[in-house]
């Protein structure tokens, strides 16, 4: 029984003019840092950076409350100016906030602010202070443009803007060549996705023009999606989804996210956990009309999501670097969100985006605090017992682990359970099983990470242990706030069966439609039981195995054999891509340059020059200086002429 998605209620626009300042404030911050940053010193830079995001947060809250307070389906819009107009194509800079984007801007500015605060402490002893905050503000501005845009071209501006910022921030410590190339890799893989995004936009645009209403605003696309020819909606949706896989690190374009850990940890928390990577999910949810018009595309989204969730989870088990584990966990959780979208539960997807933003940001910042405390030690096999030295980080990190594992009562449980229930309700049993399996693996590797880091005794060199200390207040405060959010965040969307009124889904209904589960209370509770059981088994198993130390990995290795090594090296997908794409490309361009350009075309050009030269040389030998040769030449010439004339006249006569 396929859950019917209710039609989106007509949107009632409220024209305002303050929305434009939400992305503008951080931009002003960027200008400030670039112009004056180096002269005014750290305190001013940190202050301005946080202030800018705070202003955005305040305005975002105002917009959120307006949407919350007014009737369902109201949209706060701010039409700034007409950016582009050529032939049938027009693109305006118009920002709009409806239920969906209000949630997103709150997450972006809220979590963003906390991470800015955290960065002041984390980057305290970094000399390129102003440059870091300039990039961070620029990123926030770009993300806000992406989320606030009301049409695809403007969203694309934000889309590539965040790609640029992630390139700059990943490669922040540019003196180290790996970090620089990690940044480049992120930008290029994103660019491949962006090319798909652009082609998808064109397909839809021209199809709409053929329908007579050429425009790329989301409202038009969702409204007219059903009337598009089948191939157009399918191709458009799939191409846009390619863009989404690039930005949100899904198979096959996820390879850049693990390398993105080369950037500073607050960057990983902000960009590669809370905000940028969710852009793809937001885009698919925003264009749900289009995806519904192409059920096959929706199916693909679901399958890719589930596959990514499972694959990334398996890799997560075997990682030894604390940030790599969290990176693969992000890829896996994003897989869950796309799984939700794939089964039509857009509300659940966005709910998981929100809760994930909270606990994943918390986990990353916690990891950052650990790394900061242990003086840049990132290998969990050389950690242990950090709980004694860093009580606050330990407590908050633990809460995060429980939340992500899906322990009942915490935010992760509510959002993940809703996704699994929707999958089951939608009849996608395969996806549901993957989901449950992924959930238990997630619980397993998160507990492994927690135990190896915080429990047992310290395995690293004692010098680091002696100097280990709790992080300063600017770092621990955001941790505590995020921990509170990770716990409380879930109660916004408590399902009816547990006595809640699922306020979150109700709130999002006007934007993305309300996905009624249509399950009997009994089955829903049974599903909940299964997912909780899966989580608890994962936690228990990991706790038992790893409480004695990292050698438990060896048990896994010999049990799983070669597979474990593969998981450790993330199935060396990078090597495969390198061999399949990068190397042939380089060899092709080298061959093209040398063979075609230099040898063929230049060959022809220089060849003709040489030919003319040698012809001249040939004739030069003819003038031997001997008078008689010249006379002979003349005589032969005359003879030839006479011969020709007589022959032609003979032929003429005969012919």
């Amino acid at each position: 029984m396929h859950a019917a998605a209710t039609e989106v209620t007509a949107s009632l626009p409220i024209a305002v003019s303050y929305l434009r300042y939400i992305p503008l404030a951080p931009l002003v911050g960027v200008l400030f840092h670039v112009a004056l940053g180096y002269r005014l010193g750290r305190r001013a830079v940190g202050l301005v950076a946080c202030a800018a995001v705070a202003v955005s947060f305040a305005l975002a809250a105002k917009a959120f409350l307006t949407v919350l307070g007014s009737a369902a389906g109201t949209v706060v819009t701010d039409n700034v100016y007409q950016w582009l107009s050529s032939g049938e194509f027009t693109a305006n800079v118009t920002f709009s906030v409806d239920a969906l984007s209000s949630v997103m801007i709150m997450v972006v500015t809220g979590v963003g602010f906390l991470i800015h605060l955290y960065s002041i402490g984390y980057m305290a002893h970094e000399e390129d202070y102003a440059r870091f905050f300039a990039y961070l503000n620029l990123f926030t501005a770009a993300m806000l443009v992406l989320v606030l845009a009301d049409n695809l071209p403007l969203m694309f501006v934000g889309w590539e803007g965040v790609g640029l910022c992630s390139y700059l921030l990943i490669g922040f410590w540019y003196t180290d060549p790996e970090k620089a190339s990690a940044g480049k890799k992120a930008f290029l893989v994103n660019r491949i996705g962006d090319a798909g995004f652009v082609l998808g936009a064109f397909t839809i645009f021209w199809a709409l023009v053929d329908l007579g209403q050429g425009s790329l605003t989301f409202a038009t696309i969702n409204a007219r999606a059903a009337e598009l020819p089948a191939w157009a909606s399918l191709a458009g949706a799939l191409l846009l989804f390619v863009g989404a896989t690039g930005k949100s690190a899904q198979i096959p374009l996820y390879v850049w996210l693990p390398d993105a850990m080369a950037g500073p940890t607050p960057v990983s928390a902000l960009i590669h956990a809370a905000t940028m990577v969710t852009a793809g999910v937001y885009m698919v949810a925003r264009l749900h009309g289009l995806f519904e018009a192409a059920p096959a595309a929706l199916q693909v989204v679901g399958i890719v999501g589930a596959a990514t969730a499972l694959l990334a989870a398996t890799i997560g088990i075997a990682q030894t670097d604390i940030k790599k584990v969290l990176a693969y966990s992000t890829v896996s959780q994003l897989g869950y969100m796309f799984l939700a979208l794939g089964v039509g539960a857009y509300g659940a997807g966005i709910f998981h985006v929100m809760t994930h933003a909270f606990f994943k940001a918390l986990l990353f910042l916690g990891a950052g605090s650990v790394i900061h405390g242990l003086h840049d030690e990132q290998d969990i096999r050389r950690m242990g017992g950090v709980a004694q030295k860093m009580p606050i980080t330990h407590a908050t990190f633990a809460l995060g682990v429980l939340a992500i594992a899906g322990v009942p009562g915490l935010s992760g449980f509510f959002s993940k359970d809703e996704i699994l229930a929707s999958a089951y309700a939608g009849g996608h049993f395969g996806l549901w099983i993957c989901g449950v399996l992924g959930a238990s693996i997630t619980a397993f590797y998160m507990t492994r990470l927690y135990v190896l880091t915080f429990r047992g005794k310290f395995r690293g060199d004692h010098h680091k242990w002696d100097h280990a200390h709790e992080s300063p207040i600017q770092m621990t405060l955001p941790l505590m706030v995020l921990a509170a959010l990770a716990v409380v965040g879930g109660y916004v969307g408590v399902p009816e069966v547990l006595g809640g009124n699922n306020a979150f889904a109700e709130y999002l209904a006007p934007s993305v439609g309300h996905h009624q589960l249509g399950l009997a209370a009994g089955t829903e509770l049974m599903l909940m039981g299964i997912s909780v059981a899966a989580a608890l088994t994962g936690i228990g198993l990991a706790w038992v195995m790893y409480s004695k130390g990292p050698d438990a990995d060896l048990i896994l290795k010999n049990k799983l054999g070669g597979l474990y090594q593969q998981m450790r090296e993330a199935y060396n997908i990078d090597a495969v891509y390198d061999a399949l794409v990068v190397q042939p490309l380089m060899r092709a361009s080298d061959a093209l340059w040398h063979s075609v350009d230099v040898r063929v075309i230049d060959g022809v050009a220089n060849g003709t020059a040489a030919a003319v030269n040698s012809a001249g040389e040939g004739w030069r030998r003819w003038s031997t200086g001997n008078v008689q040769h010249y006379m002979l030449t003349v005589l032969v010439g005359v003879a030839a002429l006479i011969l020709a004339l007589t022959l032609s006249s003979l032929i003429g006569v005969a012919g």
Partner: protein
Amino acid sequence: MSPLAFYPLAFVCIASAMGVVLSRNPVRSALSLVASLFCLAVFYVFLQAHLVAALQIIVYAGAVMVLFLFVITLLNLESDRGLGEKPVLSAIGFGAGAIVAGGLIAALSRTSLGARAVTLVPTFGTTKVLARQLFGDYLVAFELTSMLLLVAVVGAVVLAKRDGSYEGDEQEAAVPARSEEASH
């Protein structure tokens, strides 16, 4: 002019021309050139070009050929081997010459210049008529030819002078009387 007279004379003329080209001894070729000039003079007479025939014999055969013979004997040239050393060139030369002659003759054979279209005035070809034309229409050209001859004479004298005014004449003093060695 009846064919009976034309063909033998033509034959002699051609034979002497061949003699000029083929004979090994320069003197003999000079003399055969003289013979062919005479034949031409006879032809001129038949063509009512009496003054020209006379000039031909006096100027051409008389003066110019004597000059030739004088130079040949002055340089005391030995006969060289004629066509010997350059088989390829001579073959091409003969070939080309034959083609030119054949082509011209073929073209001429198909023209309609047979009988003389117009009857000649009796005084045609006499000195008076030629003189009137030379001093009438072609007076300027006539005077120019005198200039030409003057230049030629001065030139010849300068070139052939032996006063050593130009370099490379020291060995000239002893003009070897020896015969020119067989050309290598």
